[in-house]
């Protein structure tokens, strides 16, 4: 009989068990207080019911001791729960340093996904077991939310701004992928699967899938095709800044402030070049809004990032 009524989804990420334990603790606390309140109400309703010859009400105005007791006890309990949950929150929101970068673009009503090795998928995400993976996500239209119940994690996918989430799968299998933020007519069909594979199987899958080019290779081509290299030549007399070794560093701006050279800054500068000009350069760059899609901007970002990665031949001394 219980087969038809599942109580827990699969638990398949490094932090999903921690979430379940916390949930169970809350369930136990809730059952305790619900049963306590229900028992008191029922007992009082029966014990003190009005009937011919009943003793009548004893007027009790209140009790300072009791009021303090049932203020402090719930306060201590909820604060303890807050501390416990916040520990989980920091685990779920802080990715490990070297998580693999996957790119996700949401649009009404599909998920477009690109692997670091270049494979593209729609509404399906293949990932290996035991590898921390970070998704960098953006929407092309309205707000969506990338939700994998088996991993106990979701994150809204916004238009005009990157959001990220990370997980490390622990168990091979096929799991639900849902859009959790209402996004219009076919919201409930903006679904798919996350397929977790053993490392070796994942390698096989990668080899079998139409690999295409890696995001940074595509980005390198786009960099040339969009004529970015006309100004960003990397030479001392260039009209635009050199990107080698720049990733993640503070950049001085012409108005005296500074900004971290990261995904959000690069995306903004491609779409609205006038927003933040690097100190020492004139504002000559045209906007690429309407010419480059979110997928292409993500490829360009992958390329610029690789220029600062010693392993990929960037940032040569």
């Amino acid at each position, binding site marked *: 009989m219980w087969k038809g009524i599942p109580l827990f989804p699969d638990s398949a990420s490094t932090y999903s068990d921690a979430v379940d334990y*916390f949930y169970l603790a809350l369930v136990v606390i809730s059952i305790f207080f619900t049963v306590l309140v229900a028992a008191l109400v029922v007992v009082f309703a029966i014990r003190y019911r009005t009937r011919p010859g009943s003793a009548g009400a004893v007027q009790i105005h209140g009790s300072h001791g009791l009021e303090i007791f049932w203020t402090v006890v719930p306060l201590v309990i*909820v604060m303890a729960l807050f501390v416990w949950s916040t520990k989980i929150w920091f685990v779920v929101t802080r990715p490990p340093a070297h998580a693999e970068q996957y790119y996700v673009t949401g649009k009404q009503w599909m998920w477009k996904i690109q692997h670091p090795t270049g494979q593209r998928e729609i509404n399906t995400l293949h990932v290996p077991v035991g590898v921390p993976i970070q998704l960098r996500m953006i929407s092309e239209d309205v707000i969506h939310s990338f939700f994998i119940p088996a991993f106990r994690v979701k994150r809204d996918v916004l*238009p005009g701004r990157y959001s990220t989430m990370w997980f490390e799968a622990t168990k091979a299998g096929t799991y639900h992928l849902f859009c959790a933020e209402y996004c219009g007519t076919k919201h409930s069909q903006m679904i798919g699967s996350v397929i977790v594979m053993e490392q070796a199987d994942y390698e096989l899958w990668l080899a079998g899938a139409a690999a295409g080019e890696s995001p940074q290779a595509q980005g390198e081509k786009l960099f040339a095709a969009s004529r970015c290299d006309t100004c960003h030549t990397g030479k001392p007399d260039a009209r635009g800044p050199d990107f080698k070794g720049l990733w993640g560093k503070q950049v001085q701006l012409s108005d005296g402030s500074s900004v971290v050279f990261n995904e959000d800054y690069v995306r903004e500068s491609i779409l609205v070049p006038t927003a933040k000009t690097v100190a020492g350069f004139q504002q000559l760059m045209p906007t690429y809004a309407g010419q480059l899609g979110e997928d292409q901007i993500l490829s360009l970002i992958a390329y610029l990032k690789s220029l600062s990665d010693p392993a990929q031949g960037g940032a040569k001394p």
Partner: protein
Amino acid sequence: MSSTVATPAAEPRTNYLNVDYGWKSWVFSTDHKRIAIMYLITIAFMILVGGSFAILVRLELATPAGDLLQSETYNKIFTMHGVVMVFFFLIPGVPAVLGNFLVPIMIGAKDLAFPKINLLSYYVFLVGILLTLTAAAMGGIDTGWTFYTPYSSTYSNGQVALAAVAVFITGFSSILTGLNFVVTIHKMRAPGMTWFRMPLFIWAHYATSLIILLSTPVVAITIVLVALERLFHVGVFDPTYGGDPVLFQHMFWFYSHPAVYIMILPAMGVISELISAFSKKRVFGYPVVAFSSLAIAVIGFFVWGHHMFVTGQSTYAGVVFSVITMLVAVPSAIKVFNWVSTMYKGDVWMTTPMCFAIAFIGLFTVGGLTGIFLGTMGLDIHMHDTYFVVAHFHYVMVGGMVTAFWGGLHFWWPKMFGRMYPENMGRVSAAIIFIGFNMTFFPQFILGYMGMPRRYHFYPEEWQVLNLLSTAGATLLGIGYLLPMVYLPWSLKFGKVASKNPWGAKGLEWETDSPPTTFNFDKVPVVTEEAYAYPEGARHQPEAKVV
């Protein structure tokens, strides 16, 4: 003449109902009691509208495939269910009906401070309803009651602008009512009615009115901005025009979270009255219960970000909103413990209103505790936007506010109309509502933890058993709600004539006629004792019992 000698006993005294039967005496009435009745009829109609949409949603979800309705239609139906229930029942339900009728009487005033503004608030409300129903008839809206941008401002094809105007206008009805209550409670209390002699129903309405006055203008501004962006592409929320989509959520929840307390605080006031009256006792810890209403009102303004833990607001903003959210649990828990203690060593009479009050305590306890699940971020990141949230807020709103509304309506029905409702029918419907409610919404907690997202037209097959259970419960719940809608009107003609004080309860409303005269009291009452001043050994009098 012998006939004049016989009539005084047979002919009822003049009261607010029989004083004039002309239609003008109703539609132009500035009597707070008549306006309350007009609100009651209007809101009863809206419950039927919103309830029909709810039944359609549950029927659709009986099967995993979206086979009863088109996706677009389904989306419009759950949107209308939310808009109708939130703006035209949950928010005005208790204050505009029971509050309107009782606030002046309970403090010994002859009307609200601004009777004409009170009438205006009703017509503003009516215009809001007509515009909403027009929007529904002209194609409807499919944004969800939350109107999230940029979907609502740019992408949706529905009648968003018209619905936005409707909600904007309805907000003014709330503001006018809140303003009226604040001024009335400050300035029109009878001699001797000090702040700490006021019934807790009045304290709850006072706290609610403050929230209404401070938060409703924010949602009005937000809605105007959505309409401006939709009609004139002014970039506020849509990044395509340079806006920020998350800004909408901040502004929306800055109103809509306090709005949750606009819905539940007056209901809590009702529960305090019911438990006291049917236990023959002063509410345990009266000042603590009064101040916990104010605490909820104040803290409620600083927790809106808990609706946005996964939207990308900063990690630390989440931490701050979470800890403040935890604090709201405390005054809510205090109220529950004080209600339970009020029954201790009381003289408990299980009438229909008391059955509803006890159902409220149980359902609100579950609703409140599951709020902790969602306020803790480590869990919310999994449960946000799932059926767990749907179940949680239905436990608080429907299990809480609606149950209290029925309890209050039965309790004051003899006062409002001078007739008793059929007591056993009342108890049966309270039991059906309690069972049907739990059957409908408890399975949704489990579905939520399994990961079923809300607002889903299609869902995976493995969740059908729980969904079917929920749909069966909804049918039972529907029957439970329809019963009072039949026997209450029936009682207006066939119910036993009610005395001044059929429950033997304390409170100024029980010292005047049932139904009261137009100006409530023949002479201004003087208050000489605290609220709920039941004597030691107070008992329900068997002869007062109506069953």
